[in-house]
C-alpha cells in the first residue's frame, strides 16, 4: 500500500506535470532502446565472428562444431526445400494444443481450488503430491497408454503446462487483498459479483505470470516429447542430427527453438503489458 502514501505535493500539480514528462520519455525511448540493443549485440557478434574464424582455420573439427555459416545454410537449405516449415509447423501445433489443454485444465481446477475451501481440501493435497513427480517421469507411462502418436505428446506438454498455471491461479486468487473484497462487500456485491469484479481482475497478474512460465515449460516438454519418437518436428531434427552425425542440424534446431520460443513468449508479454497497463511497475521490457 506504500504507493498510496502521500507526498506533500500540491494536489493538482501531479496530473499536470505528468503529460509533458511522458512525451519526452517516449521520444527519448527509441534511441535509448537502439543503444541498449547495440551494446547487447557486441558480445554475441564477437563470439560468432571468432567461432566462424576458428572453424574455418580448422581449430574446431567440422564434424563436432560446424561454422555458424554452415548452420545458417542448413536452415536456409531446409527452408528452400520446404521441409523446415513442416518441422516448425508440427512443433508449434503440438505446443499450442498442449498449452491450450493444460491451461484449460489449470483454469478449471485452479478456480475451484482457489474459490472453494472444500475443493482445496479435496484436490490440493493430491495435486501437490503429483507436482513433486518430475513430469518427464510420466513419459514411459504415456507411451504405454497412448503409443508414440500425437495424443501422448500433447498430453505430456499439457502436463508440463498445467502445474505452473494452476499454482499461479490458486495463489493469485488466495492472495487477493481482503481489503479490496471489503470494498465490494460495502456495496452489497454478492459472491459472483465479487468474483467477477474484484477477485478475477486482482488475480489476473498472477495468472499471466503462470501462462508465461507454463509456455516455457511447454517448449521444454515438446523437446522431450519429440525426442522420444517422432517423424517430424524440431525435436525430431535433434535426433536426426545425432544419428547422422550432423551437428549443424542439431545447432539449427536449437537456434530455431530459441527463436520461436522467444517469439511466443514475446507475444504473451505483449498481452500482459496490454492487460496490466494499470500496474505500478517500473520494468516494461
Amino acid at each position, binding site marked *: 500500500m506504500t504507493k*498510496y502514501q*502521500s507526498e506533500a505535493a500540491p*494536489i493538482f500539480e*501531479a496530473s499536470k506535470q505528468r503529460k509533458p514528462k511522458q512525451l519526452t520519455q517516449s521520444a527519448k525511448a527509441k534511441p535509448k532502446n537502439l543503444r541498449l540493443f547495440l551494446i547487447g549485440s557486441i558480445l554475441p557478434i564477437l563470439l560468432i565472428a571468432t567461432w566462424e574464424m576458428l572453424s574455418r582455420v580448422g581449430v574446431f573439427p567440422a564434424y563436432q562444431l560446424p561454422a555458424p555459416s554452415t548452420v545458417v545454410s542448413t536452415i536456409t537449405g531446409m527452408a528452400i526445400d520446404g521441409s523446415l516449415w513442416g518441422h516448425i509447423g508440427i512443433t508449434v501445433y503440438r505446443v499450442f494444443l498442449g498449452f491450450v489443454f493444460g491451461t484449460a485444465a489449470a483454469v478449471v481446477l485452479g478456480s475451484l481450488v482457489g474459490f472453494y475451501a472444500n475443493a482445496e481440501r479435496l484436490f490440493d493435497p493430491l495435486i501437490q503430491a503429483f507436482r513433486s513427480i518430475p513430469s518427464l517421469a510420466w513419459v514411459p507411462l504415456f507411451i504405454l497408454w497412448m503409443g508414440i502418436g500425437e495424443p501422448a505428446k500433447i498430453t505430456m506438454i499439457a502436463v508440463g503446462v498445467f502445474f505452473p498455471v494452476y499454482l499461479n491461479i490458486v495463489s493469485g486468487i488466495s492472495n487477493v487483498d481482503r*481489503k479490496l473484497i*471489503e470494498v465490494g462487500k*460495502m456495496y452489497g456485491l454478492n459472491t459472483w459479483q465479487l468474483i467477477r469484479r474484484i477477485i478475477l*481482475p486482482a488475480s489476473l497478474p498472477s495468472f499471466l505470470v503462470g501462462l508465461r512460465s507454463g509456455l516455457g515449460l511447454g517448449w521444454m516438454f515438446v523437446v522431450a516429447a519429440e525426442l522420444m519418437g517422432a517423424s517430424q518436428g524440431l525435436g525430431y531434427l535433434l535426433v536426426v542430427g545425432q544419428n547422422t552425425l550432423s551437428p549443424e542440424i542439431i545447432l539449427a534446431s536449437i537456434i530455431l527453438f530459441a527463436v520461436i520460443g522467444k517469439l511466443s513468449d514475446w507475444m504473451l508479454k505483449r498481452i500482459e503489458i496490454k492487460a496490466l497497463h494499470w500496474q505500478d511497475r517500473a520494468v516494461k521490457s
Partner: protein
Amino acid sequence: MSLVLEQVSRTFGGKQVIRNVSLTAEPGEIIGLLGTSGCGKSTLLRAISGLDTEYSGTVSINGDTAKQVHKATGFIFQEPRLLPWLTVLENVRFGLEGKKEDKNAIARKYLKSVGLAESEALYPRELSGGMAQRVAIARALVTSPEILLLDEPFSALDAFTKMQLQDLLLEVWKEFRTTIVLVTHDIDEALYLCDRVLMLRGAPGEISRELAVNQQGPRLRGSEELTKAKAEILADLKLVVN
C-alpha cells in the same frame, strides 16, 4: 434516517474488545468516536457497517437490525482502497447500478465536488495520497448513503492534506447532510469536525464520556473553546496531569 446501537459488544477469541456500547445518532449529526489505539473504535465501526457480524447486541439502521451491510451506509477506510485496475472515474462509479452514461454522470458530479473533475482518466498509481483519498470519498458518497462511516480516514495523510480534506468533508456534509460516524485518534480532528465526541476507553472499550461541541458554523482551528475542550479530553484520558 436513524442509527441506534444497543448494548453492542464484541469478543475476539475469548477477549472482549468492546462492551455494551449504546448510542443514538440524530439525523445529520457528526459523531466522533475518539480513543487511544486498541480501545475498539474500529471494531465498533465495523460492527455498525455490517462488515463484521460476530458482535452481540443490536445495530439498528432505519429500524433494520439485520447483521449485514446496509444499503444506507457508506464506508471510507483508512487507506483509499481504490481498485488499481480501474480509472478514477470507474472507481467512483463502482458502487452504482444502471446504464453506463447515467453512472458516469453521477460519478462526475461527485468527482467535481471533491475537486478531481480533471483527473477522471488517471489510474490509482498516478495519484498522490491526498488525491486517492478524495477519490475514496467520492466513491463512498456516490450511492448517496444516509450514514457515512469513516475509519481514521485522514490519519495516513500529511498535515496540510489532512486539513484540506477535513474541510472538504465539512463542505460535503453541508451539501448532503449525511449522518457521519467518524473514528479517530486525533483530538483536534474530532473537535474540529464533530457535533458530539464519544470517548472510548479501557479494555474492553466502553464509552467513558460524551462531549458535545456546541460551537456552530465554521470552527477556528486552535480557537480558545477547542483548546479548552482538548485540555479536558487530555485530562480525562489521564495523558496530562493537571
